């Protein structure tokens, strides 16, 4: 473990300054895991949302139960489930990827609802015009509905991103070397938990605030009428 650089325990400020680089290194991992989890959730969520609109009850009923199940059970247990069970089926992923997958799965289930609300908010006239033009299902979703739904769901998706960032330290429990893990390691070695944990919290607050502004900026950039197609 080469994360223990020169930790200066002489004074509080010296301590704080010397552990910052370590925590920042962990923060990068945290943000990367959150980003990957968010990306996975975006894709899975859209897939779930479209499947949910299938006309076959054989698909929708199990799917609805599954999504409710994923939404209402702890991410921690789902994470453990994937982490310990997947290797048994020959899928050996690094903990980072398993963590991102678990986050992606749970938040994909949330996003399915968000997408569904966004899709259903698109007026029926758009569907009818698509039928009149004989557009196939794939084209209707890809070219007509989704581009119009996106501006409406950006705030909710942004909330998901912020929530994901705040849940990512859960990866500590499967030994991913992210920010909280480093904070605890520093605490274990120096018996000073307060400052590392406070700094970790402050860094997280900083990142989530920036993220919130980023989302608001995206809201302004994306045109209200939908993703423009020329």
């Amino acid at each position, binding site marked *: 473990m080469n994360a223990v650089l020169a930790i200066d325990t002489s004074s509080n400020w010296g301590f704080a300054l010397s552990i910052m680089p370590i925590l920042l290194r962990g923060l990068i991992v945290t943000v990367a895991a959150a980003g990957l989890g968010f990306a996975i959730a975006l894709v899975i969520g859209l897939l779930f949302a479209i499947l949910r609109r299938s006309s076959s009850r054989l698909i929708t009923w199990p799917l609805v139960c599954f999504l409710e199940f994923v939404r209402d059970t702890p991410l921690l247990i789902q994470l453990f489930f994937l982490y310990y069970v997947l290797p048994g089926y020959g899928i050996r992923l690094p903990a980072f990827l398993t963590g991102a997958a678990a986050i992606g799965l749970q938040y994909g289930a949330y996003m399915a609802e968000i997408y569904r609300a966004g899709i259903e908010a698109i007026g029926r006239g758009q569907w*009818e015009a698509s*039928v*009149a*033009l004989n*557009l*196939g299902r794939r084209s209707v979703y890809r070219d007509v509905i989704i581009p*119009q739904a996106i501006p409406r769901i950006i705030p909710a998706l942004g909330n998901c991103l912020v929530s994901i960032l705040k849940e990512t330290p859960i990866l500590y429990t499967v030994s991913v070397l992210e920010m909280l893990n480093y904070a605890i390691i520093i605490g274990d070695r120096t018996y000073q938990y307060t400052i590392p944990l406070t700094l970790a919290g402050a860094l997280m607050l900083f990142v989530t605030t920036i993220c919130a502004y980023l989302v608001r900026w995206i809201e302004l950039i994306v045109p209200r009428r939908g993703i423009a197609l*020329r």
Partner: protein
Amino acid sequence: MNPLAAFRNVSKSFGHYTVLDNFDLEVMPGEKVTLIGSSGSGKSTVLRILMTLEPFQGGSVEVDGLAYHVPGHKPPFCAPERHLSAIRSRVGMVFQAFNLFPHMTVQRNLVHAPMTVLGLSRKEADRRAQELLAMVGLEEKASSFPDQLSGGQQQRIAIARALAMRPRLLLFDEPTSALDPETVGEVLGVIRRLADEHDLTMILVTHEMGFAREISDRICFLDKGCIIEQGPPDRMLRNPRHPRMREFLASIPTPQTFAEREAGVRADASARCAVTMDT
């Protein structure tokens, strides 16, 4: 000659509410038919069934030799998707609310379906779009978005978009009902040009009686889900036979009666004003 579109003994209900009952209609190729009637009489439903937007329960519907119900398939539409797609390629529709794609430019609105469904290249689709824009008189709006256009302009684009798919049958569901009176004229002008210059089969649902008289070959009056009377426009509108139809025509303000009414109101108002001013 075989009819292009045929309804035979069609019945349709929404739950317990029967919209169409023993409905028969035949439309010959190149014919321009207008459906009129009070609300709830089923006129829009007829168009929506033709456009496969609504299923129907009894009877048979045919367009260009294709039956809408294929035996062995389950309700509501009783036909496989590919078959419905073949039907839709023959039919186009212009909606009351235009239903343009707001996130696409006018040009993209016009070329999207030809490219995606008919497989045209971007160049070919662009060329077709240019011709259509010229026909509706909106070439300069090609790169505008629908929300930058007036209602009348949007509806003209919607007509061009429907024509881009070269349908054999074009349906108009109250195309001017959602427009300001000033823009109604420009849309009706486009539809009239279409009727005069092309061999397109058209079915219109409209309240514009004057316009219906000008362009229709036949007017059908619907009441409670079936055609009560139909015939050439002049005869239908001047000499209605059925009492229900006479009631209906009396209730619609024709341009003449509207002008009379307006003059009458103005006369009353000025008389009242004169009285108050005297005292």
